[in-house]
């Protein structure tokens, strides 16, 4: 029984780098205030104490890559009133979804001397392929201010205020000079979901797609622009096949799509 009346938060990890859940511990200014208002009931990276479910809000990091994890996820859903996936692994399968385009047996033999010791699925898939998800927060890694907004919104029962537009719009809003138009630097900003604050163009670099495709993204027309700027088909294919390779429409980009 939970003696506290505070809402209960759980943080779950599947295949991932731990970076998105680390964002919670990186809220140096807010962490103690969060812990005052929310019962951090199950967060193994931060605490040895685990309180039983059900939980008011579950944050799920990572993708599904093993049969054991697939089953564990079903249990997590049962224990959670709201379930929010955080980061590119949980929302799109992550960089480990590059196996979806290859032969996982061959991958295993490259990395491990004794492939028979390794148990893994052929694919890395997002959480929403397996269970209903209440909200997906994008990013590799997520933006911690957006995470605080999502936690707040769910715990008081409103919709999170997360902009659905492109990095390109964020870039214009922040008054940066367009690196693609002014410098001829290939940039994924027009097709990438907002959330980072158009970080790369502020560092003289083109966007490389950490937040995955925005809604109704048109990567094929952007690919033609990249080609005009001198990028090869292979380079264009690779940039879409990175941290969000399994997310449509990036997933469907073929090697010759820029032709």
């Amino acid at each position, binding site marked *: 029984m939970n003696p506290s009346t505070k809402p209960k938060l759980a943080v779950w*990890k*599947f*295949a*991932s*780098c*731990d*970076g998105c859940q*680390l*964002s919670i*511990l*990186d809220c*140096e*200014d807010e*962490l*103690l205030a969060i*812990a005052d208002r929310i019962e*951090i009931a199950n*967060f*193994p*990276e*931060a*605490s*040895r*104490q*685990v309180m039983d479910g059900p939980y008011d809000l579950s944050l799920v990091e990572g993708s599904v*890559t*093993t049969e054991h994890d697939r089953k564990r996820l079903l249990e997590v859903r049962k224990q959670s009133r709201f379930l929010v996936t955080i980061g590119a692994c949980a929302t799109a399968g*992550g*960089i*480990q979804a*590059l*196996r979806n385009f*290859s032969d*996982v047996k*061959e*991958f*295993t033999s*490259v*990395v*491990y*001397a*004794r492939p028979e*010791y*390794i148990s*893994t699925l052929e694919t890395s898939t997002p959480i929403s392929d397996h269970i209903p998800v209440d909200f997906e927060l994008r990013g*590799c*890694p997520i933006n911690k201010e957006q995470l605080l907004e999502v936690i707040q919104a769910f715990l008081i029962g409103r919709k999170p205020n997360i902009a659905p537009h492109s990095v390109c719009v964020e870039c214009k809003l922040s008054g940066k000079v367009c690196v693609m138009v002014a410098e001829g630097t290939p940039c994924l900003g027009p097709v990438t979901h907002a959330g*980072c604050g158009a*970080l*790369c163009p*502020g*560092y*003289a*670099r083109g966007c*490389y797609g*950490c937040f995955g495709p925005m809604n109704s993204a048109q990567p094929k027309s952007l690919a033609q622009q990249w080609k005009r700027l001198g990028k090869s088909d292979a*380079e264009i294919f*690779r940039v879409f096949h*990175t*941290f969000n390779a399994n997310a449509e429409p990036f997933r469907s980009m073929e090697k010759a799509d820029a032709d």
Partner: protein
Amino acid sequence: MPTKIIKVDYLARVEGEGALYIKTKGKEVEAVELKIFEPPRFFEAFLRGRSYEEAPDITARICGICPVAYQMSAVHAMEQALGISLDPEIRKLRRLLYCGEWIESHVLHIYMLHAPDFLGVSSAMELAKTHKAEVERGLRMKKIGNRIVSLVGGREIHPINVRVGGFYQIPKQRDLEALLPELEWARQASKQTAQWAAGFTFPDFESEYEFVCLSHPNEYPFNEGQITSSHGLSIPAADFEKHFEEQHVAHSNALHCVRKGGGAYFTGPMARFAMNFEKLSDDVRAEAKKIGVGPDCRNPFRSILIRSLEVMHAYEEAMRIIRSRPNPSEAAPKITPKAGWGAAATEAPRGLLYHHYKLGDSGLIEEAKIVPPTSQNQKRIEQDLRQFVTKNIAADDEKLTWQCEQAIRNYDPCISCATHFLKVKWDREEPT
């Protein structure tokens, strides 16, 4: 006689997923297995066919806690493969970025992962109920590390500004200088941290270790140096695989790295501190003396003290670099891709991180090998546990379980990296 089983299902306050299985029979420890069930992600496989330029962005994603370490080992290995010589001013900024990551990762470990054990609580959040000023101090110390990484790298987790040859954009000197007052506060706070931690009670435990780390003629090691061991080895990073090998054991998704013809070894803060003590500043060494820890420390439970001193060093070093006004002539040189082979090792907060790459003519990766610190320490952790449990076998199960978890946390293991950890399961069998 009955079999006794003690079980902890998921080791907390480590980065990643793992378990521990210990079987005892009477006063004998029969088996110790540190199990890493963090699922494999196959980085070395999918790096093949990617461009040399992509390696720092992709390998950062191995670990959200030490992405800078991955980026540093990747760019140095690529620069070796491509024959690029590095502007010394770029090297300074890379050291500054690495200082930021050491600060962020070490302070996280000291205050949020390790200290709660010594004070008998489950987390930093719980610790804040009784030690609010200390936890707030830790959070503020950590934040300055993140500010350095954000400024030089673009963001705290998976920085965007690191590239082969240098950076995309050089940070402005005035923005760097704005960090100085907070760094000076943090340097003082790191002394208070060391003194605070020195008041903890440490289990009486020592072991004979072979320490392995980078050593540099006149710097405490971050990005550069020979790989050296306390048993006399001194080799360039490119020879790592001649002297060390990874072994695959059934109970783990992480590979165990051992010295060829030798065995387990120890990498991380205690190794660096023992091997490079004289390269720390007079102030850091004076502080070490004050809290009673020196290069002869062989008690891994006391590594929290060494982390505090390494953090103090990182604040000092960051200030030295900023005051030297790093001024590279360009953000990065123009690179012509070519075939080559390159290797590098750098000091991640938790120990030595080795990368090698083989590139084809167009600069595409044909082969990648990554040996993270946790797979190097994994076998050594098992040996510590075996020795610790043998010595403390009479302790009650709950206390011994907690202390075994602590013995693992001493290494600040990063299991997400090692997969390329933790359930604790006890199996005690009484002798028949």
